[in-house]
């Protein structure tokens, strides 16, 4: 267990001070020690680099706070029926996305700038190493915060895709079909994210509510008083057929969706790897160029030898 002897140290400082005073030894500072310290320290190079690095960090911190603050609202989607308080329109979300992206771009540019500048003035190897490491840390921090952003964005995009898909199954010329399909949708939606549940359940209902009056007028517009039994049967068969078709379509779409998600994940992994390899390939390229030159020189030297 470590023991904190900072207080002991401060006590020693006092002891030494009094002892020195008693002995009449001049201490750098003396009574005005604290003031002199401040005075002494200001001409020290304030560290342009580190203050700018800290600026970048605070920017990234602001971005992070901003994202976290609005995250709940952002994710809590499709809250048409929810209170005004927690609601966020799509335009607002787009705005957040745009802002975040601009922010991230500026931050990474700032980091790049710092990188190029960092090595210019300083000659000490240690300071260079230190600065490179600091910049690595900052980049890592930026990456982590960007991950926050991309996660919530991915959720949002998924929602939009779902919503579009649902809205494609909007009013068909048959109440029954629509009702049964939308009820099927409702029954199948519990298998999706739980967050989406209230949304999807409400959505088809909304569609129903919206289009009921529409159908009423349209139905009236047809102008037929009744449907003959054969036609009813035909319609029913068609219904069944359409239901079957919709189901299989739906299944396939879900499968494809799953695969697309995985492919996108794979893409992410591959992009990362490719980017990593880029740096290595660059360095290999450099080495190879250097090696070719060395070999050329070596060959020339060898050619000179017989002439001696």
């Amino acid at each position, binding site marked *: *267990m*470590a*023991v*904190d*002897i*900072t207080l*002991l*140290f*401060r006590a*020693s*400082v006092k*002891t*030494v*001070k009094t002892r*020195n005073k008693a002995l009449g030894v001049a*201490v*750098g*500072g003396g009574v005005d*020690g*604290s003031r*002199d*310290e401040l005075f*002494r320290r200001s001409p*020290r*190079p*304030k*560290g342009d*680099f*580190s*203050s700018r690095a800290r600026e970048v*960090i605070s920017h*990234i*911190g602001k971005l*992070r706070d901003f994202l976290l603050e609005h995250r709940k609202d952002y994710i809590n989607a499709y809250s048409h029926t929810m209170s005004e308080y927690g609601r966020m329109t799509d335009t607002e979300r787009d705005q957040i996305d745009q802002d975040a992206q601009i922010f991230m771009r500026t931050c990474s540019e700032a980091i790049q700038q710092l990188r190029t500048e960092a090595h210019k003035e300083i000659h*000490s*190897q*240690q*300071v260079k*190493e*230190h600065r490179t*490491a*600091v910049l690595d*840390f*900052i980049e*890592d*921090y930026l990456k*982590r*915060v960007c991950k*926050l952003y991309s996660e919530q964005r991915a959720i949002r995009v998924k929602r939009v895709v779902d919503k579009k898909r649902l809205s494609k199954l909007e009013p068909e010329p048959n109440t029954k079909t629509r009702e049964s399909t939308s009820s099927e949708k409702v029954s199948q939606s519990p298998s999706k994210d739980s967050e989406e549940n209230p949304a999807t359940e409400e959505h088809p209902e909304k569609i129903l509510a919206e289009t009921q009056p529409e159908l009423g007028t349209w139905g009236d517009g047809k102008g037929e008083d009744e449907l003959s039994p054969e036609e009813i049967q035909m319609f029913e068969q068609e219904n069944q057929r359409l239901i079957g078709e919709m189901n299989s379509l739906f299944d396939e779409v879900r*499968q494809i969706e*799953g*695969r697309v998600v*995985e*492919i996108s*994940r*794979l893409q992410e*992994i*591959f992009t990362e790897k490719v980017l990593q390899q880029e740096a290595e390939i660059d360095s290999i390229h450099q080495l190879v160029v250097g090696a070719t030159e060395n070999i050329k020189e070596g060959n020339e030297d060898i050619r000179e030898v017989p002439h001696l």
Partner: protein
Amino acid sequence: MASAAAATAAAASIRERQTVALKRMLNFNVPHIKNSTGEPVWKVLIYDRFGQDIISPLLSVKELRDMGITLHLLLHSDRDPIPDVPAVYFVMPTEENIDRMCQDLRNQLYESYYLNFISAISRSKLEDIANAALAASAVTQVAKVFDQYLNFITLEDDMFVLCNQNKELVSYRAINRPDITDTEMETVMDTIVDSLFCFFVTLGAVPIIRCSRGTAAEMVAVKLDKKLRENLRDARNSLFTGDTLGAGQFSFQRPLLVLVDRNIDLATPLHHTWTYQALVHDVLDFHLNRVNLEESSGVENSPAGARPKRKSKKSYDLTPVDKFWQKHKGSPFPEVAESVQQELESYRAQEDEVKRLKSIMGLEGEDEGAISMLSDNTAKLTSAVSSLPELLEKKRLIDLHTNVATAVLEHIKARKLDVYFEYEEKIMSKTTLDKSLLDIISDPDAGTPEDKMRLFLIYYISTQQAPSEADLEQYKKALTDAGCNLNPLQYIKQWKAFTKMASAPASYGSTTTKPMGLLSRVMNTGSQFVMEGVKNLVLKQQNLPVTRILDNLMEMKSNPETDDYRYFDPKMLRGNDSSVPRNKNPFQEAIVFVVGGGNYIEYQNLVDYIKGKQGKHILYGCSELFNATQFIKQLSQLGQK
């Protein structure tokens, strides 16, 4: 149930404790919590060689980076000023270190200073620093000063060593040389006690101490008892108060510390061994969990005039993350060879699986029917890709162990170490020997002169009666013919005469090894580990003297060997050194510490011993860690009067 949990928590490995302490120190002395979206903080780590030895088995460079350390530098190197950066120092409070630190303060190298001393700093040295800080007007820059009490090196979860840098100071030779003065002895003892004290502070427990009489171990015990006692009495500054121990840490029983002196058993450090870790330590260059191999580039048919190929040096870290190592470091060598083979095969199978997926994906564009396979395969592909890093890591470990094991195997074959091992086991367990000792010594093929010397010394140590003069002369002649240096023998003779007075060297147990025939099935599977001619020896569990002593003391068995061991309990109000232990129950936890040096063979023996006992834990420590080569060197220096 609660006591079992508490016991396991208390035995929460010493390695973990030390690592946690180091991490806290690196986090500006505040407990470290992982926060994924935390802001980065950066710092510079300055250490001396002691600090380096302590940190390197525990934290890798990557882990240091994760803690925010941008640079790690030696104290006594040229360091440039780096503005606006806090510096964490981790050094021993010696004169030169303090001077250098004061110099740093004067040169204003860093923004703020967090000073951590490996063992406690004295008041006067603290004032020296205060003086320098005042002179440099840097007092406010010294942010924190801590005594870390981490003056020991942890190598395994349950094994620690006192020091690496100044091991000559506390070596076997230093303690046992005839011309040692009292003050020198005091210094050595103080160093050992200081480290042991730090160890117990980090462990958070006050042990019950038992030691043999009349040895260096006794001196250590007396001093350690005194130091612990003083610290406990000082209620204000005691390091063992309840809140420093942490919750769930307190086992109902205190651990037992057994202090033994190297002199009770000189044969084990010389013994040839057969388990993986001990072999690596014996045969290759292995310390602080790092093994250095020199790889020869095979048969070199270099054309005349070409530059000779250079041997490449490789070094590997054998860490707790290395699952293969953790599993097999105590296994007999043939088993290790087989396991490497198996791992290689399973790796190849996984690799093939990934390749197969690749070819299946190639079908995708062509065949309609392949689409139905596709959904399955996308998932498989994702899992394959995400498991790639794991596979690569596995490959790296397999390569590592293949190289290490091959190097060990080469030594074994060249020096016929299996023959030595078998023979020594027989000597040590007093079974009949089928080959005469003289034959082996005179055999030019078997082993280096050092191996022969080791074998002879073990024989000499283990026989009940010394060989006759004539025999001895014969042996000596054979040994000198083989190229051995006879100095160690001088020393062993003296030692034997000395210990005869005390008690007969304890027997090494009664079981034997059974050679299982010449070839293992490793050879049949066509592996790289062609172990032909190498015996597949099976290790039988037999207790080395140290293990036996521990067994007696831990289980409270009565045994003439250990009955008159001294008993110390620092928590008891009145220091009495009666030999009668107050505690009659067997101990759950024990720490065995060998004063004068130890090795992996003893460690492995203890680990095997405790495996059979549920709920009991042992920690093994020694003042220095040496292999047989180093030990022989020390013996030879001692014999060289």
